[in-house]
């Protein structure tokens, strides 16, 4: 190889290496942002004493933080990115998180039907049926294909699981429009959940439709993480930042003003 050719090859190699490190840095940046958002939202809910009203959200956030933030980071550190252990742990916990999100959507259904007892009775049965069906199919399919998890099975499986959750979430959104729910907070929580399901479902379908093309599967770490970030930011706005209607408690009204109003009413 002549000197200019060697120099050219060296430039290409260095460029590719730089690009790889740059993409890894972006990926790590996104993930650190997600962990900070998860922890920040959880802390904000605890500090504001909103655990009672948002317990399902807090439990899901706790699961996300434990699995995504702690568990995966530990396994990655211990076994490395390209190890089988990390692969299995990542995909199996992804199924666990999707099922956790499914349960959270069920809790949102409960909240949406808080004043619709008759409807809740019907919805409860339907949700229980869908949950048992999804859980049964998931466990059956996973146990049968456990040793060939990376042969395209997991893409197909995850695509269907995420899409089922997305459909359920959209049904909840339609239901809320039907009963003219005024719960703006729940509306935003449902929107966040929709973003979280829709992105990965579309990405898995793209991977399925373009076999052998690396760009579709290379997109997942970014798209999946960005959708999670989108969900967390929407929740953050809904639960922490959105201006709440200012309710006046009795203690906050000066006694003199209160007495004046009472005497005027009398």
């Amino acid at each position, binding site marked *: 190889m002549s000197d200019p050719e060697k120099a050219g090859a060296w430039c290409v190699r260095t460029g590719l290496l730089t690009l790889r490190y740059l993409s890894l840095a972006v990926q790590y940046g996104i993930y650190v942002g997600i962990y900070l958002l998860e922890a920040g939202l959880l802390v904000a809910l605890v500090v504001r004493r909103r655990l009672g009203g948002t317990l399902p959200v807090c439990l899901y956030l706790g699961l996300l933080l434990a699995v995504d933030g702690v568990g995966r980071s530990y396994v990655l550190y211990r076994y490395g990115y390209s190890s089988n252990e990390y692969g299995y742990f990542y995909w199996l916990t992804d199924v666990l998180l999707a099922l956790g999100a499914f349960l959270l959507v069920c809790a949102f259904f409960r909240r949406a039907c808080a004043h619709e007892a008759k409807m809740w009775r019907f919805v409860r049965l339907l949700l229980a049926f869908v949950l048992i069906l999804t859980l049964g199919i998931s466990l059956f399919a996973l146990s049968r294909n456990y040793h060939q998890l990376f042969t395209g099975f997991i893409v197909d499986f995850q695509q269907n699981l995420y899409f089922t959750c997305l459909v359920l979430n959209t049904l909840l959104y339609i239901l809320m429009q039907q009963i003219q729910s005024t719960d*703006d907070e729940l509306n935003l929580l449902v929107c966040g959940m929709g*973003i979280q399901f829709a992105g990965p479902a*579309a990405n898995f*379908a793209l991977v399925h*439709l373009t076999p052998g093309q690396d760009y579709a599967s290379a997109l997942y770490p970014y798209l999946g993480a960005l959708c999670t970030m989108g969900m967390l930011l929407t929740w953050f706005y809904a639960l922490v930042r959105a201006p709440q209607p200012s309710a006046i408690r009795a203690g906050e009204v000066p006694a003199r003003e209160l007495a004046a109003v009472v005497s005027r009413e009398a």
Partner: protein
Amino acid sequence: MFVASLVLVVSTGLLFFYFQVACQRILRRKFDQEYFLAIVNANRLEFPVVRKALEEYEAPVEYARVCMTLKCDYLALTYLLKNAANVNQRYSGEERLLILYFKAVFFSLVARHWLRLHEQPPIFKLTAILQYFANVIGQRVSMVRFGNLTASDYLLSL
């Protein structure tokens, strides 16, 4: 193959749908007064006129003029949003999201024009976003006091 195509199309559609719903929820925020009026008057913004013309007189859309008007108002308001009575001199999270939403809706307006579809819905959305920006600026400015006058009182008295 068919199922995967269906999942791809529906999921992509729903991703954009949820993004739009989240933006619309932010835009539904109620302000305790109409702060945007002072900002519109002081900066001679024209988006309320565009909206009024479309709402009340059902005037045909003059595409080029409307685009220019909305773009100019957007540039003025985003500049004010960043610099007027803003100590940090940077956008908040929801402002960034709405800026992105404005660009997406503006793109849909251009696409609708080329496809010869109804142009009014995106124009109403764009004016709603601009009104929100003006309200945020007005609210911030109204908190700053100059002697006995708030900034918005001062602007209204011009």
